[in-house]
């Protein structure tokens, strides 16, 4: 991996709420992230497989594929990919379940952008840090 690639964190934002997803992706890009948007569960899985990603931000409530389902499936091929659950769904136990499935954290909409970016960075660092250790 090149240095530039390390600096730019590649994020996939999976949310069926198009307006929310596009706006948030623009704001994340403005803050130096490289954001891809997926508007459904299947699209998210597809993009996770085809692209090189650092962090996934996942909505829980999507019409075709539930966020938890996506999380469970992506774990098969990408066991280490950090996932942050971002949902307006007030289901606390769903978040808890997500954590059990290995989500990095759980944030409720409307989320403070500073909190979100901090979490993304934290997630990326934790994973790449452990990878770096293992690499040595």
């Amino acid at each position, binding site marked *: 991996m090149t240095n530039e690639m390390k600096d730019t964190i590649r994020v996939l934002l999976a949310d069926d709420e198009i307006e929310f997803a596009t706006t948030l992706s623009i704001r994340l890009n403005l803050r130096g992230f490289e954001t891809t948007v997926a508007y459904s569960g299947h699209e998210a899985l597809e993009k996770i497989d085809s692209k090189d990603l650092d962090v996934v931000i996942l909505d829980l409530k999507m019409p075709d594929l539930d966020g938890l389902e996506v999380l469970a499936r992506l774990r098969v091929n990408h066991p280490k990919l950090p996932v942050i659950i971002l949902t*307006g769904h007030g289901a606390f136990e769903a978040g808890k379940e997500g954590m059990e499935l290995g989500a990095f954290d759980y944030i409720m909409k409307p989320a403070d952008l500073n909190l979100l970016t901090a979490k993304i960075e934290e997630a990326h660092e934790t994973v790449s840090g452990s990878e770096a250790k293992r690499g040595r």
Partner: protein
Amino acid sequence: MKLVFSIFEKLIPLSLSGGMDSNFSNRNYRRLNAILVAIMLATAIVPMLMAAGLGFKSYNELFRDTERAEVQWQLDGSIKSMEYLLHTLESIVLFVARDDRYEELNQGSSLEELFFRLQRQYGYFSDLGVIDENGIQQNYYGPYDLEGIDYSEEEWFKEVLDRGVYISKVYTGYREIPHFAMAVSKVEPKTRKRWVLRSTIEAGKLQKFVNTIKNSAEDDFFLIDNEGKLQTSSQRYGEPLSHFLSDVEPGVHRIVSENGESVFRAVGAISHTPWSLVIINPNYIHGSEWKTFRARLLAIVLFCIVTSIFVVVLLVNAMTRRLQMADELQITMLKEAEQTEKLASIGRLAAGVGHEINNPLAIIDQRTGLMEDLLHLSGDFTHKDAMQEGLAGISRSVERCKVITHRLLGFARRNPVTAENLQINQVIAEVLQFLDSEMLYNKIRLNLKLSNDLPVVVSDRTQLQQVFLNIIKNAIDAIDREGTITISSNCLAGDIRVVIEDDGPGIPEEIIKHIFEPFYTTKETGKGTGLGLSITFGLLKKLGGDITVRSKVGVGTAFTITIPPECYVHDQ
């Protein structure tokens, strides 16, 4: 059967059979009580009275019939005795008047000798007379000069010739002593002529006869003639020859005597005489046996009535009290359930609204954020500052909405209860650690009265912490500055009760009613969401517990939290 039920339903007031709901609070217990007492007394007393009445009537009839039979028997016996005695008297006269004695008695002193013999032997003959077939008194011995009197036109003379024997009524005659006459007719065998021997007998003899056969001092026992004149003395009606009654029917009758007594009057004719025997028998009603029976019956009836009234009144009172208590309990429970249901449905509504608003809110948040970002990147232009300020305002409002929607969503949270063994005192201590600095800052004194021997409960630690945190924070907010919060815990009937009191301003009654409803807040706008207490309420209900509040303006407020020994999942 249906008819019986419909009648019963009409009898039973609506207040007894009517349904119950929480608005139904005024059963008329006094009226219910009265109706129940009346019904039960009627069912107890009426059959008893009927039985007593029947017994009274039957016994009465039995007594009367027995007594009537007895009086009849006495009358028959007495008449037979009288007939026998009079027959004996007749025999004497018949014996004396031998057929062939006519001549003899008309000669010399033989009639006088006969009279004296009779007088010596029997003592009650007053005179003797011999009468020929033409009715002329041929010879007479006695205190009057009656020789030669013609009796041929007299009724008795005709009768004695017809029947052979004649007995007259009692009369006073010339001697002022009541007496009666007895005459016999004979046929002189030689001349084939009829003649009559007539004797007069003192009425005292009749009295003696009557006294002989009279067997009870209570009974009035006397003879009357066919015109109703007394022939012997009567206890009730006086001396002989005074008037008794005209037209006395033979047989046994119940009559009411002159002095108001109910008596039996038995009348029977004595054959071949002008007399009837009368027995006046005081009724059994005045007898001691009947009086005792009546007194006992009355005593039993009165005792039963008094006992029934006593028992029924006590029983019905106890029943109505029970019913009233049960009703009150039911009403309280219904009201509580209604309150819980109301709060739960408001909660569900709030959660639904929160959920629906949250997503658009997230979009507003992002859009505003993006515009702020873009403004930040672009160069200066007119109104840039004003626009930035406007966007910051939107962001602040979004932040406020966010707090509300997040709390609203808390209602919908279906946090599974993670039960563990807990010491409530320890949970309280953990919560107090959070609030220490805030209390110190506000100069609030903490007064802990925790019981040391509380049993361990099985419940959810986090949710209980949330409950205590909410209530204690509420108390701190209520006091504002300088005051005391008292937290006490104890164990009551297995449940643990924690009372959190503050000496703040207290809550007016009209607010207390709504205190657990969502969005009900008295804090200034933006400071409280009005959700804390309703969430606390919901949490406790979910854990099988309860929370109640009492407050007095100017004195303070106390929340009482009840936690069951073991929580059960009570999800809605």
